[in-house]
């Protein structure tokens, strides 16, 4: 069954078409990722799916409910972690959770247990009674994630959930997300511009300038680029090129001092290569294609890591100041 169904969804802000008629479906229990650079339209898409923005055209169904015609049905089915801060920093962590739980109809008798459960999960149990103003940026982020889970949503939307988190918390959070999927069958829709995070997803849509340019499993996307690349250096470059051509009948590229070939499966090829090779080599490197390469191949541009990270820093900074 499709938990999310998106049909020709688009959003226009004045002259700017931020999302240009996208289609996709997400199955129940799937982790689905939106990967794209700044301004690609990721947050705009999430906002439309979560009924915060109304689409310019098209429709989408979340848990079978239309975002155009049954907003409250959609709202009751989802949990949402926004890209930007959204806690009340004059309230304590517990008060923020209670406010949320009451609006989502979590029974009073259940609240304590669930609050403990989600706070433990994000490792904030001992800060439950503290004001949010006294929290660090990462702690606020973790609490937002806890809040998004407390009403046991059918679909969880995470807009760049790991921004501002340290590596340890980041992997901790991923463990938990994977567990939610496994144990509760929760459907998870997330956006990111971190390639290594996209690898956790069952399927990824690569989005650029409001269009989905590719949609597949991470493995299949990488496979599109062909196989792994073996890069070698030798004092006798010409002999190496000749030998590789003769032995394996493949295309051989020369890049400066390096000699490159592409093989189906790098791990099993390397031992074989070592046995076969007559020409002496100085160094060897195996490179598996990354999603960066996929993005580069699809759009002709790299997802600029430095731009992303400076924006992250700004956001994290804004969070830490509490902006109030």
């Amino acid at each position, binding site marked *: 069954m499709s938990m999310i169904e998106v049909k020709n969804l688009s959003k226009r802000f004045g002259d700017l078409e931020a999302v240009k008629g996208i289609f996709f479906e997400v199955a129940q229990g799937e982790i689905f990722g939106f990967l794209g650079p700044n301004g690609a339209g990721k947050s705009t898409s999430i906002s439309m799916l979560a009924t*915060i923005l109304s689409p310019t055209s098209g429709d989408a169904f979340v848990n079978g409910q239309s975002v155009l015609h049954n*907003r409250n049905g959609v709202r009751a089915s989802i949990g949402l972690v926004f890209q930007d801060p959204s806690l009340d920093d004059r*309230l304590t962590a517990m008060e923020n959770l209670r*406010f949320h739980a*009451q*609006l989502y109809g979590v029974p009073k008798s259940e609240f304590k247990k669930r609050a403990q459960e989600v706070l433990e999960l994000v490792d904030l149990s001992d800060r439950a009674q503290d004001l949010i103003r006294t929290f660090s940026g990462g702690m606020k982020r973790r609490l937002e994630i806890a809040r998004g889970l407390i009403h046991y949503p059918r679909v969880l939307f995470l807009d760049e959930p790991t921004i501002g988190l340290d590596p340890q918390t980041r992997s901790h959070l991923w463990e938990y997300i994977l567990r939610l999927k496994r144990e509760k069958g929760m459907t998870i829709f997330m956006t990111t511009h971190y390639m290594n995070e996209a690898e956790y997803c069952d399927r990824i849509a690569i989005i650029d300038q409001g269009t989905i340019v590719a949609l597949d499993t991470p493995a299949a996307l990488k496979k599109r680029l062909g196989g792994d690349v073996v890069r070698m250096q030798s004092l006798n470059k010409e002999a190496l090129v000749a030998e590789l051509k003769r032995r394996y009948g493949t295309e051989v590229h020369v890049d400066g001092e390096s000699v490159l070939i592409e093989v189906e499966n790098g791990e099993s090829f390397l031992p074989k290569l070592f046995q076969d090779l007559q020409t002496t080599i100085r160094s060897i490197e195996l490179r598996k294609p990354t999603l960066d390469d996929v993005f580069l191949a699809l759009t002709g541009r790299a997802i600029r890591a430095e731009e992303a990270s400076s924006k992250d820093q700004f956001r994290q900074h804004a969070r830490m100041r509490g902006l109030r």
Partner: protein
Amino acid sequence: MSIFLQTILTIWHRELIRYVRDRTRILTTFIQPLMFLAIFGVGLQSAFATQNSGFDFVQFMFPGIIAMNVMGVAFFSTVSTVWDREFGFLKEILVAPVPRSAIALGKTLGATSIASIQALILLALAPFLHLKIFFFQLPALLGVMLLLAFAISGLGLLISSRMRTTESFGLLMQVLVFPMFFLSGAFFPLTSVPSWMSVLAHINPLTYGVDGMRQILLRPTLDAAVLSRIELYTLSTDVLFLVGFSVGMVSLAVWAFDKKS
């Protein structure tokens, strides 16, 4: 409990928690009325001491100052929704599966409660100004206070639904709040002012709040003849206007909030 009532209660509760925690805000809202009383009240008192108006100026101003305080607190408690928008919390509220109208009502009632609590505390000053207050006056006083607070909260929420940033707060203060304060009869009787001023004063909801509170508060202290010279309407007219204004404003605010989904 129905979702509707639960939502109102949840939103209302948050407003009250925030109010109780904000010491500076509580303090400033008390300082302003005291300053007005001390500076204008005492200053004008001595300036007019020669004319025998038959009433004490500080006593005259006191009900108006309370009404002004109710208005200021109610207005800024709902206009502060713009802050929620700017700091992202409004998104958290708006994406919840609850009726928008309940959110709007919760906000309005929260502001109404806060404004009324402040006004009741200010009332404790009355004995120091040699005003007689009796318990039987309290229900009527509270009634007018709640009505005024409710009306102004509706106005504040309506304005906040049109505002995107907090930058225009200063402007709002200059073009709306101050004129409403000064043209409400809180500082001088409106019985003999030029007609342009009279027209403005009569569409100002605060005027009716001031007039109503003044009649209730000063009746035990002042001569009926003196009182009739400074009152604008009968108490029931004041109440009727405030009821009408509240219903209008709160409906508009709820509608504006509802539409913006």
